[in-house]
Structures are given as C-alpha cells and as structure tokens.
C-alpha cells in the first residue's frame, strides 16, 4: 500500500507523529495524568509555543485530545489512538484470544484441584 496513493491509516499517522523524540517525551508526560501546555513545558528545554505545535501534531494523529476546564485547556491521551496502534502492532484477535486461552486454562486447572 503506497502512502502517496492511499490516505494514511490511523496507525501510520500515529507512528509518524512518534517519529519525533520531543513529541514522544510530550506524550510520555501525559501518560499518567492530564496537563496544561505550561505543565508539559515545565522542566523540558522546549518553549511553550513549540510544545503547542507538537501537541497539535499529536492531536491530528489521534493520539492526544484537548478539553477545557474553566479557563484552562488540558491535554490528555486519546485511548482510541492507542487502540489503533496496538491493533496494528499486536493484532486485535491474536492478543484477545491469547489472553482468553490463558484465563480459560487457569479456570480449568482451578476446577480440577477442587
């Protein structure tokens, strides 16, 4: 599938966005909680406007969402973007069925011991 001929898939967009190390660091800073631009830039050697620009790319790639809380604009990770990326990497049904098999076998071995 040629990228020039076909619109990039969601996973393509996510991977392209992660190609930049600063964007990966910004994304990591959102892993555990939502933050404002100022909170993200705090402690990084990147200006606020640059952080805003990177956030815009992450948003367009479906990896980050922005929402308002009072007068503040807060950024958080978009779980659907992660689902697309994980599916692209690991395969939706292979991952789910492997986990199911393990759970069913744990249950069967519990019952045998009873």
């Amino acid at each position: 599938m040629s990228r020039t001929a076909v619109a990039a898939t969601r996973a393509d967009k996510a991977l392209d966005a992660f190609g930049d190390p600063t964007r990966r660091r910004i994304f990591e800073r959102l892993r555990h909680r939502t933050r404002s631009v100022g909170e993200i830039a705090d402690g990084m050697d990147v200006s606020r406007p640059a952080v805003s620009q990177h956030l815009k790319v992450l948003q367009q790639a479906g990896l980050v969402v922005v929402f308002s809380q009072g007068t503040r604009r807060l950024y958080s990770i978009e779980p659907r973007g992660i689902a697309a990326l994980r599916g692209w990497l690991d395969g939706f049904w292979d991952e789910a069925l492997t986990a199911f098999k393990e759970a069913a076998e744990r249950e069967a071995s519990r019952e045998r011991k009873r």
Partner: protein
Amino acid sequence: MKAQSMPANDNPNSVWKTTLVQAPPAVAWRVFTERMGTWWPLSVYKIGKANAVDAVIEPRVGGRWYECGDDGSTCDWGRVLLWEPPSRLVLSYDINADWQYDPDLKTEIEVRFIAKGESATRVELEHRKLDRYGARRDEMRRIFNTEGDWGRLLAMFAARAAEEVSR
C-alpha cells in the same frame, strides 16, 4: 502462544482465528461469556473515556455487549445475535474504524467451542462482514488479522532509530 490462523485466510471480508484451549467446552464458554472482563485487553480495546474495568455479554439473544467504566458509565460494543451454550455464540461488533459505537455497523463475530477429547476445546473465531467498514475495510482487517510479531515491531523501531541518527 499465538492464536493460529487458518491456512486459507484470504477472504478480504473476514478474519478467521483458532486456538486450542486446555479446558472443557463448558469452562471455555463460561470464561469467554461470563468472565470476559478477566481476559479482554481492557486497557487498549475499549472506547469510553473512563478507565474500563469490565466487559459484559448479557446472556440472551438481543442482549447487550458492553464495557463498564470505573465511573459507572457503560459503552455499547454490540449485541448478542445467537446464544447456544456451550457451543456457539454470535455477536455483532458495532465499533467503527474511528473506534466509536455505531449501532448500524453490524460486523459479526462467530465463536465456536468444539470439544477435543474430555479436557480440551478448539475455539474457532470468525470476524466477518468486514465489508461494512467500506473504504476502511483493509485497514481494519489488518488490525483484526495481524499476528503479534515482535520481530516486526523491533525492525520498525530499528528503522525509526536509523532515521533519527541520519537526521
């Protein structure tokens, strides 16, 4: 261990997977349907804003299939189309290519539980009617069909690293 794909898995509108489970069909059925929340990869395959803490299939034809968030919210994934314990289950999967619920999507998942001796079950899963994804069918089929492949993942990171070094 990976779920195996059928050799002739080339229908563009469906994905076919099978796995051998060391558990009798009744146990496999129960874990699949009643305890889905204990094994479904809820941290990734979920659509709600809240952290997903359970996945529920209501045990009857027409029943809902949905995720439960830690804030008490629920998000529908689909419906039960066929309920034949402990051997056959058909669900509609109504999550679109943007990972949002669309009750009109109606792709179908059929799961068959086939006894293999007294203590094992072959579980066959077909995810079909992927043509409902329209122009995004191939993108979605790839996601459903991909076999977990760490080699490919590592190769991708190696390529990315090389790109950055050459910048």
